[in-house]
């Protein structure tokens, strides 16, 4: 290999500059503040140095990737290099690339890797819980595992579907060659990778004890490790905000002729609803974490009772972001569900307008329910009936999604392909997730369930049972389009059945364990719950093992077997399946014109395109 090729703006340079920047920032921070800060702390911990180190490190990483080239050249009045558009081959997946399809695949691999780390943490947590008393992890390590698991999953999966699938598919589905802001699109991905790496550094600074919620004042007492949490989530917030902005701008401005709002694929509507939430909720998260960082460094005391602040302030601000956040996770899953069900039922989407209303309704209502997380906290007790009502009303738009899914199955010709199995499992899991949510929305019932394993199992049913199952449905459905190679269907079905059964065998009993009085995030529990916890742990290991089958399937089918997908293996009528697999660099030879929504099943129409073909056949892909 030519060594000279390694020099330039690429991932290697980025990592080197990132590490150099981190240490430079660490040194600079100590120069600003002196060797140690005496106030508030009896230790030699310097939060300012660590925050500066993270900041300079991230800037170094982005400069190394080449994000500064374009603005700097424009500032100097020189013609900007468009080098990032011209990369070919495998190299473009390991650097700044503004092709929306490359960014989508980067997201899939990058987020997949971090989810794998988060899943490993879950395995370690379940291992500890096989005994009621101490087994392997001490209190601090256990809480760090819990915190990193929760934070990694909640942070990374915000873009878990929008990152890979919306970046890849939305431009195709609306008939565009690119996103509105391609450089920002690449930036959202690399910010997320920098953030994930920062979260992993928490292990080097002693971890953090707060879980993913980071409640103050516990997070203000915590050691240096919590700074990784703050930097991670703030960067995820920036990435989320930019992603939402980019998606909205793309869908609003870049639709091809004939792609009216009433013809948008339902997945694009889900993307729009989620993007609105991201754009409006993420700034609250960023500012909350900024306040927390100021409390830890500049001694502002926003959240500390003894210095005139309030722990309620943090809880309110966090959940004002945090509740929209869980719908940022849920709505894209609904989009994938309703996008895939018509294909394998051979039916148009049933109740298109109802589904759109449902998604937008969820998006709006989700800003009005956050204090149900504070039912037991004693704040605004008189407002609890309102939050009870708003929380229960949000089940109406969620019900729309269900009735649209059920209606789509009606008199269809259902084919049990792997993506379809994941979608049907979504309906089962999300039903349980929704029903268990009713207990948490009702104040008298919430007395038992709040903060217990019941609520933990509830949100795993909605997020893992909803989002992750939809994520896998999307992978089995669309990755053959991205790579051009089919998955092994038998391995896929084995993966599905083990995952589905193990998932329910893990989280079903956890609902009962919560009802029996086991709180979340504890390292010890009552002895009589050991049998149930052991059952759950073993199921969780099987659940983790099913991911290895999935990995084996990826490696076998995409590296060794390599069965070509062909243009349209599923018989879908949506535009992305009228293109070659993988999709050529410039998507279409000419911009398509749309004649209907992408569900003209039973209408004798081949696709939703008004004119064909949009790509000359057998065009070699560069």
């Amino acid at each position: 290999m030519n060594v000279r090729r390694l020099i330039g703006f690429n991932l290697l340079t980025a990592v080197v500059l990132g590490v150099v920047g981190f240490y430079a920032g660490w040194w600079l921070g100590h120069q600003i503040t002196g060797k140690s800060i005496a106030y508030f702390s009896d230790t030699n911990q310097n939060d300012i140095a660590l925050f500066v180190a993270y900041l300079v490190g991230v800037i170094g990483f982005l400069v190394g990737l080449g994000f500064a080239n374009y603005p700097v050249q424009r500032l100097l009045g020189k013609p900007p290099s468009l080098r990032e558009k011209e990369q070919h081959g495998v190299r473009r997946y390991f650097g700044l690339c503004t092709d929306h399809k490359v960014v989508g695949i980067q997201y899939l691999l990058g987020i997949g890797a971090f989810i794998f780390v988060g899943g490993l943490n879950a395995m370690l947590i379940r291992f500890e819980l096989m005994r009621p008393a101490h087994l392997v992890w001490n209190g601090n390590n256990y809480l760090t595992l819990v915190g990193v698991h929760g934070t990694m999953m909640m942070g990374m999966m915000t873009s878990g579907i929008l990152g890979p699938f919306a970046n890849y598919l939305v431009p195709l589905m609306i008939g565009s060659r690119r996103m509105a802001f391609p450089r920002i699109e690449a930036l959202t991905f690399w910010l997320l990778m920098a953030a994930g790496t920062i979260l992993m550094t928490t292990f080097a600074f002693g971890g953090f004890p707060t879980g993913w919620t980071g409640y103050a004042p516990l997070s203000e007492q915590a050691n240096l490790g919590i700074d990784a949490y703050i930097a991670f989530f703030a960067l995820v917030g920036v990435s989320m905000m930019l992603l939402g902005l980019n998606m909205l701008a793309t869908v609003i401005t870049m639709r091809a002729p004939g792609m009216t709002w009433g013809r948008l694929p339902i997945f694009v509507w889900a993307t729009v609803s989620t993007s609105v939430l991201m754009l409006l909720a993420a700034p609250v998260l960023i500012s909350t974490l900024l306040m927390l960082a100021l409390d830890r460094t500049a001694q502002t005391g926003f959240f500390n009772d003894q210095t005139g602040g309030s722990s309620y302030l943090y809880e309110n601000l966090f959940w004002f972001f945090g509740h929209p956040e869980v719908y940022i996770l849920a709505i894209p899953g609904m989009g994938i569900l309703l996008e895939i069900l018509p294909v394998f039922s051979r039916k148009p989407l049933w109740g298109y307008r109802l589904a759109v209303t449902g998604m937008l309704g969820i998006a709006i209502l989700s800003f009005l329910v956050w204090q149900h997380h504070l039912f037991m906290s004693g704040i605004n007790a008189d407002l609890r009936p309102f939050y009870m009502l708003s929380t229960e009303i949000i089940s109406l738009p969620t019900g729309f999604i269900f009735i649209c899914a059920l209606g789509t199955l009606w008199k269809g010709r259902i084919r049990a392909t792997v993506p379809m199995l994941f979608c049907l499992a979504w309906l089962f899991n999300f039903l349980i997730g929704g029903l268990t949510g009713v207990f948490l929305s009702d104040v008298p019932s919430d007395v038992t369930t709040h903060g217990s394993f019941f609520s933990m199992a509830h949100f795993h049913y909605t997020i893992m049972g909803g989002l992750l199952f939809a994520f896998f449905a999307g992978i089995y459905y669309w990755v053959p389009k991205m790579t051009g190679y089919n998955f092994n269907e038998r391995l896929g079905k084995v993966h599905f059945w083990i995952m589905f059964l193990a998932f329910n065998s893990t989280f079903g009993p956890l609902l009962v364990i919560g009802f029996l009085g086991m709180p979340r995030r504890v390292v010890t529990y009552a002895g009589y719950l050991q049998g149930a916890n052991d059952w759950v742990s073993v199921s969780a290991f099987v659940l983790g093992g099913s991911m290895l089958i999935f990995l084996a399937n990826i490696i076998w089918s995409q590296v060794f077997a390599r069965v070509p997908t062909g243009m349209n293996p599923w018989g879908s009528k949506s535009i992305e399946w009228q293109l070659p697999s993988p999709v050529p660099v410039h998507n279409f030879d000419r911009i398509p014109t749309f004649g209907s929504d992408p569900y003209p099943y039973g209408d004798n129409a081949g696709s939703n395109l008004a004119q064909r073909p949009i790509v000359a056949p057998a065009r070699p892909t560069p």
Partner: protein
Amino acid sequence: MWSKSNSHGRRIAAITVIGTAIVLPLVIFVLGPNMPPGKATQVARGQVTDNTVLLVVMTPFTVFILGYLGYAIWAFRAPKGETELRDGAPIRGHMPSQIAWLATTTVAVLFLAIFGTTELLANNGAGSGSGPNPVSKPSGQVLPVQVIGQQWEFTYRYPTYGGVETAQLVLPVGQEVAFHVTSLDAVHSFWAYELGVKADANPGVDNIAYVKPAKVGTFQIRCAELCGLWHGYMFDTGRIVSTSDFKTWIAGERTAFAGIMKYLPKYSTSYSPDPPYRAG
């Protein structure tokens, strides 16, 4: 699905009705009485009723959706070995069933909200942390007990008994109790499982929850809000005893802690200790 001359719709309706008729009695008479948190107090009893009512409302929806899903997967499956792709009927919606679904779910949701509010304003929400000025207060004489969350244990002060602070929670049976929950450091949550009580302990806040123990026995106390390193070890067992036993016990505690009492701060609805030092 309610369209005419349609045997699928009738079958699904039959599955829903028969399924609900089978499941509902099981929910009411078998599952319901065993719902948490038990019958140790009036408040807990009310929560069991609430949990049962929620289950009853959910049952027909669950049976309908699962029944429909199972039926659809079986009845509408593509014939085995069908290689040629054939489309289903181009049905893009059905206004009557959409309206029926919207109406049914709206009625259920409004019922749940109204029912929940009524129960909250009646006694059943009393076990939840209701802030410094709860809307509904019990009538009659109330025994105040302050619960102080601190890293990592709960201590209890009895202001009507000279403000004595103990490490154990003992309550007299049949006496209305007002828990005043507060914290000295991080956010904790006082969860007395069998009593049906959960109230967050926030620094500088007096969070009140009412409960009336109905029978003599013990109950589990756990911290239900992540509060740091030893959160998992922050548990305790409380006791409900007869009034005379309680009088004896509290008198004993007052003697035992008399020497320490003069170093304690005066009883207050909340305390403001020095800012905390960094700790795990």
